């Protein structure tokens, strides 16, 4: 009894509060990650899933997948998708943040409303854009035709290049609010008098932007880009609903390919292997983010 009292008196009582959440994460995240690794070294398919002894095949899944062209295509696609999305959503988000950083009556309410697209379930966003991109009833083809940019309706989602473009456009729409709000918050931390004294020294708008705004926002920009990379790289719902990786794997990403292996072809081990490759790439990028995160924690 005394021992328990003593244990609960000092800071060790923290364990009592933190353990339930940690145990939960260990059971439902830690254990799956480990079993994913084991799974990728075995040969588990729909035929072997019920048998007690699962054949251990070492790194065979990895070797086999890297020889197969679809994995390489998926890696290239995932990077292309991520990089292009980030370029557009970051640039547009940054521009919008600069607009809403000015003082005008609608600034706050409109900036708040723009967050809405970000909250919509991605399945629904994918549905809306699938409708807008559809070749016969899609509003996008109609607008492009009225502007004489295209002559014939484009089959956006059934041609390799345009399918990827459609996915990127949709994801940029989701990503703009996220980039805008984080950069907006960063902008408010820059004191006004820096700009004022720069004006007195005769700096113009462009000089102020590159000499003051960008350097002052360095850590915000870094974390927006890295987080953006992580969240865009793991894209699943959007691709799955809009194109399901097609046509002929031209929009296949690591997430959708892994899903296809596990749940369309029932090759669970191969699905787990692809998921592990995705995990390793993201883990490396996450380490970069953690470095920034803990550097910021330290300055607090």
């Amino acid at each position: 009894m005394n021992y328990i009292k003593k244990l609960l008196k000092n800071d060790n009582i923290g364990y009592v509060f933190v353990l339930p959440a940690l145990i939960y994460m260990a059971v439902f995240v830690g254990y799956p990650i480990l079993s994913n690794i084991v799974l990728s070294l075995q040969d588990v398919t729909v035929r072997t899933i019920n048998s007690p002894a699962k054949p251990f095949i070492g790194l065979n899944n990895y070797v086999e997948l890297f020889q197969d062209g679809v994995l390489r295509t998926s890696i290239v696609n995932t990077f292309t998708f991520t990089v292009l999305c980030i370029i557009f959503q970051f640039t547009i988000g940054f521009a919008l943040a600069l607009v809403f950083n000015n003082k005008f009556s609608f600034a706050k309410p409109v900036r708040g409303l723009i967050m809405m697209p970000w909250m919509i379930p991605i399945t629904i966003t994918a549905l809306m854009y699938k409708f807008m991109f559809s070749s016969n009833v899609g509003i996008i083809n109609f607008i492009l035709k009225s502007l004489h940019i295209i002559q014939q309706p484009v089959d956006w989602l059934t041609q390799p290049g345009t399918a990827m473009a459609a996915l990127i456009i949709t994801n940029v729409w989701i990503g703009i609010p996220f980039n805008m709000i984080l950069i907006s918050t960063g902008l408010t931390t820059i004191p006004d008098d820096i700009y004022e004294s720069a004006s007195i020294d005769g700096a113009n708008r462009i000089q102020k932007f590159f000499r003051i705004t960008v350097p002052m926002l360095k850590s915000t920009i870094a974390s927006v880009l890295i987080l953006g990379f992580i969240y865009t790289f793991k894209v699943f719902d959007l691709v799955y609903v809009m194109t399901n990786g097609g046509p002929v794997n031209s929009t296949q990403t690591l997430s959708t390919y892994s899903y296809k292996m596990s749940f369309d072809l029932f090759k669970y081990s191969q699905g787990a292997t692809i998921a592990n490759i995705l995990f390793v790439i993201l883990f490396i990028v996450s380490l970069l983010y953690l470095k920034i995160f803990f550097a910021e924690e330290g300055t607090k």
Partner: protein
Amino acid sequence: MNAAEKTMKRNNIIFNILSIIILAVMFFPLYWTFVTSLKYEQEIFRVPPTFFPSRINTASYLAQLKSGDFNMFRAFGNSAIISICSMLIAVLLSVPASYAIARFRFKGKKFCVLIFLITQMLPVSVLLTPMFIIFRNMSLLNSYFSPILADATIGIPFSVLILKDYFASVPKELDDASRIDGCNYFSSFLRVFTPIAFPGVIVCAVFSFLYAWGDLAYGMTFIQLQPMRPITAGIFNFMGQYGTKWSYLTAFAVVTIIPVTLIFIFMQKYIISGLTKGAVKG
């Protein structure tokens, strides 16, 4: 009126107009979905398209009340059950955890933060296959439990990381005062800290709910029985079967967005603070 005031007024008008244009562009897909859901099927195919339905058609909504090919309201209920339960798990576990991280010095604290940071960045697709096999072995497939348990793993790390800052902002003196008044750690946690950190708790609840509400992968993989599937998975199924029945599909979209819109209208303040503090996207 002097020159400076005049430019300020002019700038105000220019920026207001600009912001309305930006808003209109960003909201167009939502508007377009909404008006399409109120059109008759022939009007959807009309060229040039109409920007407002010439005749309002509510059949797309009403048909679902009579349990059509896909009972939207049942699916809506499934989603509500799954999202609320997973939100409760996330909040109940993350509130005490973040209190501990913010308030106590114990061994391995930094490691805890690290674990939550890493798990927060994990993609759903990494966990999907192993979770499927684990839930299969536990006979939890085709029950609400599997998506509830899985969705909470998204909400917990986010909530812990957000809330620890809220708890850390509570002054230490309050802690000491409550202890002198005879509170032990548990009652001071419940009576002093949690009420002060309440806005943070709401942020966590809102985000945990939204993550689960928007989930497609877990819901459609773990639940194969159509009547038990959440609304996102139900809509996806319907798209596969009736890919071009846009009046129905857009109506489903509108119904799914309704709770999101309500949360957005009433909780906007919390959502924006959560986003900027947590810098998290699901």
